[in-house]
């Protein structure tokens, strides 16, 4: 495997040359805008009936994926979830091949065989999004097991939603990871809702208490503040890379959209006022934008320019995907076995 990346920070840190603070956070801003506008396009493709099936949008949670992936090396591993577009983009995936995958096209990351919930990419260390809730906890822990045994000092980040706290396999692998001091970070994205049910209705005790029980290092962070996520994740990743062991990070965040693109009428499980409050007061892109302006790293017009550029990039990526060919039907039974 010969990883390449579009992530300038990863390239520079690989070269041992840290980017300036301004460059780092402007890059993080652009990454978050990319995820937001990618998801806008996905919703648009769905409503125009151009996308087969459904998709689960990451809008509102951008600071978690970006804050954490900006602290990773390109050869570090991630596993993702059914709500995975943000993780894939933050780890360096290209929007054009992602859209192609969402449309089931041959040029997609998985030749159209995976779709929205299964994007995987060895070049960016993406072991795959997973459509079984909690389904990737073993894979991420296994990647950390391999990293430790092969001595290549990689770490693995396991993204999952708070809904996965209901799955027993999570507790089996956290026990193994702590026993064997594996370099894995369990990132619990608490977006408040297990599909259509508030997490307090499904989760006894505390979230962090679960990891505490295994003696795993834990932390909690405002998942709408990309700088806070990045700082705390950076410490936990460094700690894991040095061989001390796993960590569990709870990121409190919010899912702007429904469980999936078709979940439009949501008032039976959450109010419009609640949704609006998160969007108005705690939007992760606004939070970082305000800080960039306060620090005079940027100004409103320059940030607007980023939105404009990213929007153009997404439009051209969608065009690429729409024009791309479907895989040939003869391919249906290829890749069953290696």
């Amino acid at each position, binding site marked *: 495997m010969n990883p390449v990346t579009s992530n300038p920070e990863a390239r520079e840190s690989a070269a041992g040359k840290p980017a300036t603070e301004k460059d780092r956070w402007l890059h993080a801003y652009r990454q978050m805008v990319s995820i937001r506008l990618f998801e806008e396009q996905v919703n648009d493709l769905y409503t125009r009936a151009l996308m087969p099936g459904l998709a689960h949008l990451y809008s509102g949670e951008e600071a978690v994926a970006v804050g954490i992936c900006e602290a990773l090396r390109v050869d570090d591993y991630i596993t993702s979830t059914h709500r995975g577009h943000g993780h894939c983009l933050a780890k360096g995936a290209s929007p054009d091949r992602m859209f192609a995958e969402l449309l089931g096209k041959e040029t997609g990351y998985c030749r159209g065989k995976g779709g929205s919930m299964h994007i995987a990419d060895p070049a960016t260390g993406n072991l795959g999004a997973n459509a079984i809730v909690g389904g990737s906890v073993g894979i991420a822990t296994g990647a950390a097991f391999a990293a430790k045994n*092969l001595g290549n000092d990689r770490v693995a980040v396991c993204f999952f939603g708070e809904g996965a706290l209901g799955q*027993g396999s999570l507790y089996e692998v956290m026990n193994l990871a702590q026993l064997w001091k594996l370099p894995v970070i369990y990132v619990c994205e608490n977006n408040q809702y297990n599909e259509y049910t508030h997490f307090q209705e499904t989760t006894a005790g505390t979230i962090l208490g679960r990891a505490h029980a295994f003696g795993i290092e834990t932390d909690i962070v405002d998942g709408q503040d990309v700088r806070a996520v990045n700082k705390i994740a950076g410490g936990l990743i460094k700690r894991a890379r040095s061989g001390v062991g796993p960590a569990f990070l709870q990121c409190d965040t919010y899912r702007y959209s429904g469980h999936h693109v078709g979940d439009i009428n949501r008032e039976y499980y959450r109010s419009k006022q609640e949704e609006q409050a998160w969007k108005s007061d705690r939007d992760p892109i606004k939070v970082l934008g305000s800080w960039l302006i306060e620090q005079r790293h940027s100004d409103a017009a320059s940030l607007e320019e980023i939105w404009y550029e990213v929007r153009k990039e997404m439009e051209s990526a969608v065009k690429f995907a729409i024009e791309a060919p479907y895989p040939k039907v003869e391919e249906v039974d290829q890749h069953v076995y*290696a």
Partner: protein
Amino acid sequence: MPERELTFAQAVREALAEEMRRDSRVCILGEDVAEAGTPFKVLSGLVEEFGAKRVVDTPISEAGFTGVAVGAAMTGMRPVVDIMFGDFITLTMDQMVNQAAKVHYMSGGHWKVPMVMRTTLGATRRSAAQHSQSLQAWFSHVPGLKVVLPSTPYDAKGLLKSAIRDENPVVFFEDKMMYKLKGPVPEDDYTIPLGVADVKREGDDITLVATSSMVQVALGAAELLEKEGISTEVVDPRTTWPLDEKTLIDSAKKTSRVIVLDEGYGRYGVTAELAAVIAEGAFYDLDAPVKRMGAMHVPIPFSPPLEDATVPTEQTVLEAARSMCGNQ
């Protein structure tokens, strides 16, 4: 010099040791696999040679350590997981069926899962309903997995080495009643390809297609049938997937009578699939409908006379074959 003989368990252990010496990425994960060498003592001595980093005792967490093996296989290791009793594969089903089996396909061929799951099958050990099942049909049903059913020490060594070298997830079922069975096993580094059946005994009047534990039963029945003047061919598919359909169909065409034997439950099982393959491929050459013999459709009972009634025996196979050949 007489041929060297090993037990089935020794052949399994030799295959593992040779592959671990050949390839430092091969490791073993499972419950009591290290100093204990498993309850069946199949792995005795391996931790002493390869150390606790490569022969890894795990907690009693089948889903957890199987999931770890999937991720480790994707990222450069060649793990062999040990599931002590085949009944416990139920605890690993999401990891094997939704993860290991599908990763290569779902990723458009980008990721691979070169792992082996070793587990056991077989009744008559007086272990009751949760330690006696033969669930090979479950994994044989899933695209993306390969399933191996060795029936002799020779096959166990050669097939396990192939399984470990395979780039796909392979499930390797060992009959726990066969661990002490002895047979010739060369000291050489030989492999047996997955997907090649073996004719264990040649004959002209009837074919017994048998897997794993049922191969010895079929060979015993064939001896008895020989005395009655019935010449019996015994064919061992050795893997349920990939499946060597041609050898099965050729034998059916040659003898025109077939009984299929597998220790899994008869309903919706391995015997049903093999019988269908033969019926589709050799229908016009058959003198009788293909007969299936598997475990009775009951949970395996504890009480010895009840348990013994649930699985095919030399005597029940003899009677079925005699009847099919018109010799009452």
